[in-house]
């Protein structure tokens, strides 16, 4: 047997020697190795592995268990609550719903900069392959436009349920207190959070664009661009950038002017 060159444990606590070249001797020097001496080490690492793999699984599972009305399976919701601190810290909290459930419309942002005086307003759209290169930089702008759309919540909050009158039945009062009011409160909390996210994102985009055009006022419009149906191309001869495939998603104005 050749003399051992390096017998000291490394940073992971594994012994690295010149003798453990092949699989038959590795187990005698790697305390983590299967069949090796230190089963307590392996047990501890196994627990960590199991918890981590569980966290990797739980987030997309919880995402998949969320349905169209935003409600989630209680089991999935409970698990996600447990895993969330770890998952979010390690950027594991994703659904992996790539082009799912269906490839849908794409979203862009058109911005209009009104300059002082008689200067022509500047109207541009992002993402734009003309302005953003390489492709990854274009895709970053594309994702920001999609995020602005995905965070959108209309200016009108959910409607608070009307309390039952004093002479209502016990069942009506129970319906209000135990069902209608909690549903409303949860919807309101979600709405407030989304609206705050959207307004903050929208505000920072406007501020960024105004910093590029000092003195100008910026207005953002979300634009939805739907893909063509196959027969629109084959039978009607439309192109992918046909004008009627673009729709401005205008922010409704709340009565009183507030938005």
């Amino acid at each position, binding site marked *: 047997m050749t003399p051992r*060159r*390096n017998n000291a444990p490394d940073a*992971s606590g*594994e012994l690295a020697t010149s003798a453990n*070249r092949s*699989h038959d001797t*590795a*187990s005698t020097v*790697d305390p*983590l*190795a*299967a*069949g090796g001496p230190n089963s307590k080490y*392996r047990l501890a*690492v*196994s627990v960590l*592995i199991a918890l*981590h*793999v569980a966290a*990797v699984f739980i987030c*997309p599972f919880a995402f998949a268990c969320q349905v169209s009305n935003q409600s989630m399976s209680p089991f999935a919701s409970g698990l996600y609550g447990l895993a*969330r*601190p770890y998952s*979010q*810290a*390690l*950027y*594991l909290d*994703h*659904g*992996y*719903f790539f*082009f*799912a*459930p*269906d*490839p849908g419309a794409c979203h862009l942002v058109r911005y209009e900069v009104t300059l002082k005086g008689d200067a022509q307003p500047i109207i541009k759209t992002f993402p734009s392959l003309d302005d953003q290169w390489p*492709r*990854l*930089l274009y*895709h970053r*702008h*594309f*994702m920001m436009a999609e*995020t602005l759309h995905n965070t959108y919540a209309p200016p009108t909050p959910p409607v608070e349920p009307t309390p039952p009158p004093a002479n209502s039945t016990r069942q009506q009062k129970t319906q209000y207190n135990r069902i209608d009011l909690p549903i409303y409160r949860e919807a309101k909390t979600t709405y407030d*959070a989304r609206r*705050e*996210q959207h307004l903050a*994102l929208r*505000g*920072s*985009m406007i*501020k*960024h664009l105004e*910093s590029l055009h000092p003195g100008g006022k910026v207005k953002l419009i979300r634009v939805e*661009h739907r*893909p063509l149906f*196959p027969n629109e191309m084959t039978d009607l001869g439309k192109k*992918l*950038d046909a004008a009627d495939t673009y729709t401005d998603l205008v922010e409704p104005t709340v009565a009183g002017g507030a938005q």
Partner: protein
Amino acid sequence: MNSLARHITEWFRDIVVAWDRFWFTPSEPHTLAMIRILGGSMLLYTHLVWSLNLEAFLGKTSWISNRASVLLNKGYDGEVYAWSHLWYIDSPALIWTFHIIALIVFAMLVVGFQTRVASVLAAIFTLSYCHRLNGALFGLDQVNAMIAIYLMVGRSGDVWSIDRWLAIRRGDLTPPIPRASTNIAMRLIQLHMCVIYLFGGIGKMRGETWWDGSAVWFAFASLEYQSLDMTWMVRWPWLISILTHITVFWETFYCFLVWSRYTRPICLGLAVAVHGGIALSLGMPTFGIAMIIGNMAFVSPELVKQSVAAISRFTIRKSSTNHDESKVAASKLASTTMPATTYVRINS
């Protein structure tokens, strides 16, 4: 009853042995090293692209302000479990300083210099950028973060690295040692890829277009994604529907079929085809390549080692052939300017 208890006990024991074998069998580092080089290069490229407009993404008047970034990370319960050093700095000097440090760390990871330290710092920087730039991210960043985290676990610098070269210069000629930590890192990447594909497939199965065979058309018809015009396929609806069905079934059953040596080549081949297609035609070359890098976790270190050796031999042979050819060309050139008697002497 005793027989039943015995069988159950044996079953549990078999599970423990199988678990041990799955996770703790020492593995050579070649696959992980290749993932380090390729995944590290993708991390470096990703962050280099931020450099093109760094202050627009991270500065005082960035696209996504620090406040918006924190809110995008905040759950509906009001809690934020993400963290980014970039939330606390907005001066151009500090942003650029930390950014250049990050780029150096990613470069160190690629070349395998101080790999253990570089891998930890690379993971920290990757996560920090992801949390700060939430809102401008997509699948590429999810895979980047996954690879960065798992590169911390194994010894990816044990081979094909500056660390290895320096160790050889110091006289340590022992070949790379198979380690359980390397195997753990590879298994974590493998399982994570399985989770990605499983839920990618499940998500698609909830959609109508993935069942009626039109989903791939709608992806090709999305102008904002398009980098190669594939809309000619509209005349071949059966081709579109085949691609659609293959995609969703391959994704969903990947996590079962990739483990068997009989079906693994098919799974990995389809991965290269699907992600290569995404890279070429849907304008996401970085995401496509990153997913292919993740799939590499299923390639054995022995095969990676042999492939690299074969490529090295081919390259050396090619360069020595080119060198010989250039020597012959040089001597021919010299002979055309020399007296005929000398020319005859060279050729004899």
